[in-house]
């Protein structure tokens, strides 16, 4: 049974593509055959984050239009077994993603893959709606910052009303919260919303907390999903998130600062 998972947020720049690459890679590493699909038509970037930008020949819209078949468009990842990438088109035609076309591609992917990860574009326009429409499950990526949290709540509203499951009156799709760019230091100083704050406002289950980390930029510079950087804090946090997604219980790491002694507290700042 194949599962379609949308990685969404509403707001841009919070780490959807980084998360899509990391989660898809993590699932493939666990032996699940996984396809990661870029829905950001016109602003393709998943290929860069996955490091396969020079191997793109055909794209999602080519497949929808019948210019290429799915097998021609899917890029097999060179680092990770079981992992395939379907790049977005660079067309400026906003209507390129038709509902029928997206459904046909997802149906065909479902025959072959255990997980289909849909990397949503920012916003609540067609691309984002199409990425979410057929999903069985959602991961909502949120920064601990007011506009991101508000947009995530808006997106949760859309997930519960504008998806196929909602329209067919089925149970609402499960949504998991993934907080990125978290700084335990700043939370302790009262400068940043805490994990508990964000969770209390959005009231959905917590999949993971990814700390603000130099490793994320390093990984995107290199075109390598950060989850492959096993030494890094962000890489480990993503591995934990993947394990939780697969049903394992793991304690959250990187959400508290190293406890300082009395001197550390007196002379902080």
């Amino acid at each position, binding site marked *: 049974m194949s599962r379609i998972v949308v990685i969404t947020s509403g707001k841009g720049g919070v780490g959807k593509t980084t998360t899509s690459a990391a989660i898809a890679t993590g699932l493939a590493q666990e032996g699940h055959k996984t396809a990661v699909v870029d829905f950001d038509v016109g602003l393709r970037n998943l290929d860069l984050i996955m490091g396969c930008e020079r191997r793109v020949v055909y794209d999602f819209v080519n497949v929808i239009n019948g210019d290429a078949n799915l097998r021609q468009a899917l890029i097999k990842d060179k680092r990770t077994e079981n992992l395939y990438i379907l790049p977005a088109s660079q067309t400026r035609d906003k209507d390129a993603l038709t509902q029928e076309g997206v459904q046909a591609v997802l149906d065909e992917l479902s025959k072959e893959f255990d997980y289909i990860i849909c990397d949503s574009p920012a916003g609540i326009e067609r691309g984002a709606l199409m990425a979410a429409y057929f999903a069985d499950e959602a991961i909502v990526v949120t920064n601990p*910052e*007011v506009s991101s*949290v*508000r947009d995530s*709540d*808006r997106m949760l*509203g859309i997930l519960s*009303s504008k998806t196929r499951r909602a329209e067919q009156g089925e149970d609402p799709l499960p949504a998991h919260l993934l907080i990125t760019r978290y700084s335990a230091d700043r*939370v302790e*100083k*009262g*400068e*940043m*919303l*805490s994990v508990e*704050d964000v969770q*209390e*406002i959005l009231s959905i289950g917590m999949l993971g907390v990814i700390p603000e980390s130099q490793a994320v930029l390093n990984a995107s510079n290199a075109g390598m999903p950060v989850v492959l950087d096993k030494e890094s804090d962000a890489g480990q946090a993503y591995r934990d998130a993947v394990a939780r997604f697969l049903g394992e219980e793991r304690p959250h790491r990187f959400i508290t600062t190293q406890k300082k002694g009395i001197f550390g*507290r*007196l*002379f*902080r*700042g």
Partner: protein
Amino acid sequence: MKGIIDYFRSPRQTSAKVAKERLQVIVARERSSRSGPDYLPALHKELLEVIRKYVQVGDDAVQMNLESEGDCEVLEVNITLGDKQ
């Protein structure tokens, strides 16, 4: 030295706390407007117009909150008239 002074000072309103309170208000409002029936915005506008026939109030004078428990729906309307002159 700043650390010592901070340590003994009473807990202040941190910016994260302000952020949380603002978010709770706006998220609750947006949720009730998207889950509520379509006539809520019109009702809100007309209520405001009726009140303004008698009292001058700002745009945020009427707060509406729709809650449902089981098959019972409660529409809570709060009207703030502002400071006594």
